[in-house]
């Protein structure tokens, strides 16, 4: 064992320690920063979920935010004074995920015949239909005014009141979702999705049911979207149709593209960049959106494959760490 291995191991330890340190420092930051980090985490969850459909299965979904809305309204209806139903947070979390998955299958079923841009426009229409329906179903959703005064979330007796509480919850969920999706990516299912992305005919020729594959991708990603919506609802304690516009769907797609399609590390990077950028640009006042747009186009033109190279993914990092630790001579 040479000197260089020890140095590299120490370097690795330092990087890991820095990550842990940064993550554990978040709760001590001012509330505003914790909120920004919370919203980064929510967008990571959403983008990782959408990535299942866009990045792995290669189906462009422009109405993803509808599932997020379904989750958020599930919490708003089942844990508020609206109908005087007060279910516990964890129960609604599962209901929201299930409702999202059902909505995903409902959408997925009719559109399986479509590919490419036709699929994109139908998912877009679906997203708009859900939003307009929420906006107009005054008796149930209060229409454009939204539902306020949602219950404070409560996790097994632990009240979730401050952004810091949500930070821990979101951190755990983000890790769980990323780990789950990473596991799926490496499973036979993930391989089938990637084959579907490359060539449908070949997949079908291999005797794989493409319909089930697509439905599964839709349902899983919608379930993640629904769960994300429940957390959003409990965090804001207010929901209104305004939070679920077409622009929001596009933002989640943007996060995936800017970061790197089909790559969890890329998605995390994309979420950080696209959530932090508007916050940083606050100084620019009315020029904020203009600068945001210019930066966006510049980044895409300069790095069309995304900020993070496809080679630098979760699998690569894990492999690197493992080989460096167990058999350093191979590195």
């Amino acid at each position, binding site marked *: 064992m040479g000197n260089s291995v020890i140095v590299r191991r120490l370097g690795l330890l330092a990087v890991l320690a820095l990550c842990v340190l940064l993550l554990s420092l978040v709760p001590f930051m001012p509330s505003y920063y914790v909120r920004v980090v919370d919203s980064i985490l929510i967008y990571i969850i959403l983008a990782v979920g959408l990535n299942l459909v866009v990045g792995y299965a290669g189906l462009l979904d422009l109405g993803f935010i509808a599932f997020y809305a379904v989750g958020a309204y599930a919490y708003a209806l089942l844990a508020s004074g609206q109908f005087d139903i007060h279910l516990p947070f964890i129960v609604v979390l599962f209901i929201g995920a299930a409702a999202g998955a059902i909505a995903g299958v409902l959408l997925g079923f009719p559109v399986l015949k479509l590919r490419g841009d036709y699929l994109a426009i139908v998912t877009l*229409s679906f997203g708009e239909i859900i939003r307009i329906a929420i906006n107009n179903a005054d008796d149930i959703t209060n229409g454009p005014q939204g539902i306020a005064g949602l219950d404070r979330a409560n996790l097994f007796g632990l009240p979730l009141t401050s952004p810091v509480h949500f930070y821990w919850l979101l951190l755990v969920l983000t890790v769980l979702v990323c780990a789950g999706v990473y596991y799926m990516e490496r499973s036979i299912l993930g391989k089938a999705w990637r084959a579907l992305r490359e060539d449908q005919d070949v997949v079908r020729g291999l005797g794989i049911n493409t319909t089930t594959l697509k439905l599964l991708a839709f349902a899983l990603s919608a379930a993640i979207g629904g769960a994300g919506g429940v957390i959003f609802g409990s965090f804001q304690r207010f929901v209104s149709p305004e939070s679920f516009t077409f622009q929001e769907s596009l933002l989640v797609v943007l996060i995936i593209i800017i970061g790197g399609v089909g790559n969890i590390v890329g998605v995390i990077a994309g979420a950080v960049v696209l959530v932090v950028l508007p916050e940083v640009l606050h100084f620019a006042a009315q020029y904020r959106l203009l600068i945001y747009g210019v930066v966006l186009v510049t980044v895409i033109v300069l790095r069309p494959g995304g900020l993070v190279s496809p080679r630098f993914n979760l699998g690569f990092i894990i492999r690197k760490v493992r080989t460096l630790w167990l058999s350093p001579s191979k590195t």
Partner: protein
Amino acid sequence: MFDYFLQQLIFALAIGAIYGLIALGYTMVYGVMRLINFAHGEFFMLGPYVYTFIFSGLIGLGGLAPVLDSVIAIVASFVIVGLLGVAIERFAYRPLRAYGRLAPMLSALGMSIVLQSAVRVTVGPQPVHFPAIVPSAPIESLGGMVTTVQVGILAAAVLLMVGLTLFVNGTRLGIWIRAASESWTTSSLLGIRVNRAVSLVFFIGPGLGAMAGIMYASYYGIMQPTMGSVIGLKAFTAAILGGIGSIPGAMLGGFLLGAIEVFGTAFLPILSFGYIGTEYRDVFAFAVLILVLLFKPAGLLGETVSEETTVAKKDY
């Protein structure tokens, strides 16, 4: 009742013609580049702003003949917005050709944000009055509920559509565009400069969008920086409805969407006994779109080939 119907019909045709003109831009760009140009709605919005800028500039310089000022301003806004389209394609889309289809689409989205906020920063976010090009007066012979503006819009839009059809089908440049839509490789082997065809499409499409914008603004007498977003989305659905990539399909889709919206709004509350109100107008349009695509997955006039060949095998 007949007057009401006629009024609704003319309204549907006028708004449908506007959708159709915008849809043409989407469909032509899609035809040659397989790109959903999300920035297209902003060209629609830029039309009336450029028109007002040129028109008031001409008036400020003393003005020529009253009609001539408008005509010059209209032509100038077609050319200026068209050139802007060419420039945007050159700098924001062309470098991304080798990188699949998601990257250019997202670049278009970024351009849309840039254009919209650039206008908002220069002239302010509030709606501005748009000066009428044709004086609005009711036409008595048509029951007195149809105005000159509606008829003018309809006539101008149909004129542009006929002109475009003749251009694409009958001229050498039109052949370039059609060839590039079929296959880039083959047409470049046959000596067609594909890049010029693309530039041409990015001149005509945004130009037509700008014309539609001027019509829309003169119909409602108002313009604002966000007007392109919703209309652009609807025109895109019109293009899909007709079969994206097909020029007659875009026109048909536009008129159809106009009819669905106007008659849906007028008769939906009556048909559903007042249960479903006019606020569901947009749901109605989208629902019709989904229904049509379920039975004709390539749109109404799109090529009816098998699912895999309709679009490239490897989509995104």
